């Protein structure tokens, strides 16, 4: 009798085999509390380091937006987009979520290798935890964004409610981004070095501080390509919802949905494919 048969006869199961995708996702969903509590406590732990604690979550992006506003506002001079400050703040705040999801996703497995090697749980909870932490930082920023809109006397309309589906789709997209970067950095650690460049480039091409239509107005093809950029899409939709003088169009919503769902599904599948290997590769 072979060892496998002997094991089977006594009801023993093979250790370390990867679950099928559906039961993996189900299993991970059952353990979501772990990702949530870990994100919550990590945030608390991080905040307890500084005197201003959680205020930094709001202070930092405000400072950042103020600096960009000052520099680009002066540099761009007359070619500033209309309603510059609300325009800029929407861009900077939403971008900081996507940037955070990408960067913290990238370190979510490699930075927790001790945890991976000592406890068994669906590893996708690690990038999930990273994204939840980013959501914790995003929420106060959204509140700040609304205050900014009110301060700059943007008319309050029902369109503001479109911010909710836009943010939800963006979070889905960000989750996909985090799972993909989480696995890629496991295989190629060097990628961590490139992440700042990738985020910088994305920052500059996503129309955070300039108007895509004004800059690329003479190049219709480039504008069309730029309009497919998911980062730009989520930011534009938020502007369309809240900033006066900007609008949302249906094709953008379609792109937003397609990007969100495809990244979410591809991300989960891509991460799951290497599930049993995360403990090994360093």
């Amino acid at each position: 009798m072979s060892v496998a048969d002997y094991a089977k006869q006594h009801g023993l199961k093979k250790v370390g085999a990867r679950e099928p995708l559906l039961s993996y996702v189900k299993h991970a969903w059952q353990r979501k509390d772990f990702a949530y509590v870990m994100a919550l406590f990590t945030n608390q732990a991080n905040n307890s380091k500084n005197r201003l604690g959680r205020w930094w979550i709001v202070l930092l992006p405000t400072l950042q937006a103020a600096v960009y506003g000052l520099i680009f506002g002066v540099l761009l001079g007359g070619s500033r987009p209309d309603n510059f400050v609300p325009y800029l703040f929407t861009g900077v705040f939403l971008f900081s979520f996507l940037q955070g999801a990408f960067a913290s996703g990238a370190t979510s497995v490699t930075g927790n290798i001790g945890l991976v090697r000592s406890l068994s749980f669906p590893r996708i909870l690690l990038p999930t935890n990273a994204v939840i932490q980013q959501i914790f930082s995003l929420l106060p920023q959204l509140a700040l964004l609304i205050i900014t809109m009110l301060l700059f006397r943007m008319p309050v309309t029902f369109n503001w409610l479109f911010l909710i589906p836009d943010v939800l789709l963006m979070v889905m997209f960000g989750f996909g981004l985090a799972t993909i970067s989480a696995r890629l950095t496991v295989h190629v650690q060097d990628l961590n070095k490139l992440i700042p460049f990738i985020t910088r480039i994305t920052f500059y091409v996503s129309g955070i501080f300039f108007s895509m239509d004004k800059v690329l107005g003479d190049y219709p093809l480039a504008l069309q390509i730029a309009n497919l950029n998911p980062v730009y899409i989520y930011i534009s939709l938020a502007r369309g919802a809240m900033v006066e003088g900007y609008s949302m169009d249906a094709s953008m919503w379609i792109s937003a949905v397609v990007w969100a769902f495809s990244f979410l599904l591809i991300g989960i599948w891509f991460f799951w494919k290497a599930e049993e290997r995360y403990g090994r590769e360093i």
Partner: protein
Amino acid sequence: MAAKSKPELKPVVIVDNVNVVYKVFASGRKATRGSAGGGIFARKLQLREVHAVKGVSFTIYEGESVGIIGSNGSGKSSLMTAIAGLNPIASGAIYASARPMLLGVGAVLLPAISGLKNILLGGLAMGYTRKEINASADAITKFAGLEEFIDLPMKTYSSGMSARLRFSIAASRDHDILIIDEALAVGDQEFRNRSEARMREMRDRAGTVFLVSHSMKSILDTCTRVIWIEKGELIMDGKPEKVVKAYNKHTGSKTID
């Protein structure tokens, strides 16, 4: 010894010709081979293989508690993480009746938050529900003997106190198969006695315990079977007294512990 009243032994863990190989990027010459020369500039970054566990096989039966001994770097921990399913194996197979649980909850705990919050976090990391962990939080605190300190951040604990908390969280519920990697060497004498008693209790409830330790006294006190691993190979597998005696002869120690 392990059979108790049952005529047929029921296997709990089967390790079948398991190999664990690490691939690492390393520069420099191989330590074992003669240098090919070329000086410092000739050194290249190359993929090297470290064969940590070489063709180890054994079967553990119900009710056994197994001591794993061997010198540092002998492959004990690699084998244990492989059994826990945390470390993929290069070849061979490992079968188990339940998911083996490594007592390694320490990796998830956060020094900046309170002991109580860490109990919740550690419990969730091990797969308990919030309800279960809330129900047993008091018992865990009491077992760790940290009632007065449980609301303080864990970074204020001494290393012994944190070790006690880690063990108490991990041992709070019965695991069918528990792997303890040198966890008992910490804590004071009183806690050590308590944790050893807890381990025997778990073993008696038909749980299987693997104990990796350099303390032959702990091994002799708690184990019913000992496996000795050296350089990734299984050297000896048998009754504790016999294996420990041979191991001591090999290492040159005359006294136990």
